[in-house]
């Protein structure tokens, strides 16, 4: 479904991605893990068109997307729950959700506003509140809800559990599992490594802008030395 090949991208002189290949089959749930600064968010942004890749390809259902503007990519069904949530602070919760629906582009959605509110009841009490004044966790729910409103073909999540209470994180993860079981393809970036490898089918480990490991999530999860090695910050005294 989503096929990323040899993606290279960076920021004025800095090469943050050095040829990453990743794919997500239809209905697959895939994790990407890596240390701070490994290039995970850059990968998502390069896929979504927020930054323009220097080379490599991104294909969704066989349609080439690399180099297209972000809004075109979003409309084609690749929807991101971005790092830092990026909710629209001046719009109300309700308006944020309505905006999400604009990305549908003719696809039939699994969720309408009711559905989202059922998934995240906390949002219901806050419908008329400007999204910028909500607590961190509430904003995270909104960001996920908004992406779901757009009837994604592949959902890209950048650390969705960030800032969520354990209960709420459970809730989100089980929601993701549920979405996956309904057939949604999901690419998940997560720092809560154990949780991520628990719920996903396959995983990639990236480091210094390259894929250094991949395999079934269950296998990765048991490889403790691997995780210790690639997920740590270099020693503070280095």
């Amino acid at each position: 479904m989503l096929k990323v090949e040899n993606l290279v991208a960076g920021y004025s002189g800095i090469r943050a991605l050095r040829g990453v290949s990743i794919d997500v089959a239809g209905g697959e749930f895939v994790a990407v893990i890596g240390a701070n600064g490994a290039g995970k968010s850059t990968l998502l942004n390069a896929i979504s068109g927020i930054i323009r890749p220097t080379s490599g390809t991104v294909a969704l259902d066989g349609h080439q997307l690399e180099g297209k503007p972000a809004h075109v990519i979003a409309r084609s069904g690749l929807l991101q729950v971005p790092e830092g949530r990026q909710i629209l602070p001046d719009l109300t919760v309700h308006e944020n959700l309505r905006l999400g629906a604009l990305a549908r582009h003719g696809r039939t959605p699994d969720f309408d506003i009711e559905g989202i509110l059922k998934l995240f009841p906390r949002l219901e009490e806050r419908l008329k509140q400007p999204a910028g004044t909500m607590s961190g966790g509430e904003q995270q729910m909104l960001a996920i809800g908004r992406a779901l409103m757009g009837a994604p073909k592949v959902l890209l999540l950048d650390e969705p559990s960030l800032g969520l209470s354990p209960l709420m994180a459970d809730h989100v993860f089980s929601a993701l599992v549920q979405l996956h079981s309904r057939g949604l393809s999901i690419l998940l970036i997560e720092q809560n490594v154990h949780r991520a490898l628990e719920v996903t089918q396959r995983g990639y480990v990236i480091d210094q802008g390259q894929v250094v490991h991949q395999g079934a999530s269950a296998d990765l999860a048991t490889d403790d030395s691997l995780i210790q090695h690639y997920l740590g910050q270099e020693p503070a005294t280095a």
Partner: protein
Amino acid sequence: MIAQQILNGVITGSIYALFALGFTLVFSVHRVLNLAHGGVFMVSALFAYYLVTSGVSIWVAAVAAALAGGVVSGLIEIVALRRLRRFPPHVMEFAALITTLGADIVIINIGHKLTDAQTVRFPFGTFPNVFFNLLGLRISFLQIAVLLTVGAMLLFLMYYLYRTPVGLKLRAVASSEKAARLMGVNPDAVYLQTFFISGVMAGIAGVLIALSFNSISAHMGEPYMLKAFVIIVLGGLGSIPGCVMAAIFFGVAQTLCVVYLPPGAPDIILYSLLFLVLLVKPSGLMGSAAAISIVGRRA
């Protein structure tokens, strides 16, 4: 006389609102102070003037001028602002001051060449010169047209911004461009649209004001720019009804000052008053603290 003067003030204020609405729209949505707004306003008036003098009826000319204003304003967005949006807001907001000022200088000087630095006016009788007597107050057909246009623009903007999907996109882009793009909104299209509408409004204002004051000259937009600044702030940024209210408040205050104070004093009182209003209510008459602008500071 006082009743007549208050009516005069309301009309003067409506004329300010006419000019300021398009300016406010661009500011409230994109945080850009479009210094070329006065230029667009002038170009439209001049365009209508050429059409009318070559035999086109004023109604057709007004529509054409409004469209011309929209097109010029859209061009300004493409030429002078589009590339700037890649930069962080505080960089973009300041740079935009200069690029739009540059655009204004270009437009004004083209107008200058076309009019040979002279003031022109619509031929006499272009607009029916009819007066009504209402309860002892004199009001012209043109003045009624101004009032109605301001009302129509206000309603249109409120409907457009808060009741249509396009308005939702517009406010989304205003709130965070990156996030809006991630939701499939094309910011370029949204910006262009805002500028087009703002230009159309400037165009309508240009024609009506040129008709009202019998004059079209290259510099006709300049005195309104200062007023427009004052009005968007007084009204509370981002508040479209606030803009109209502030304009009318300002128009009435100005008229009464002119009438009852010795020559030269009105400006002192008026601007001191503005200063005081801002001190008492730091976010304008109708503004909420949340709408505080960030020109010069990071979002």
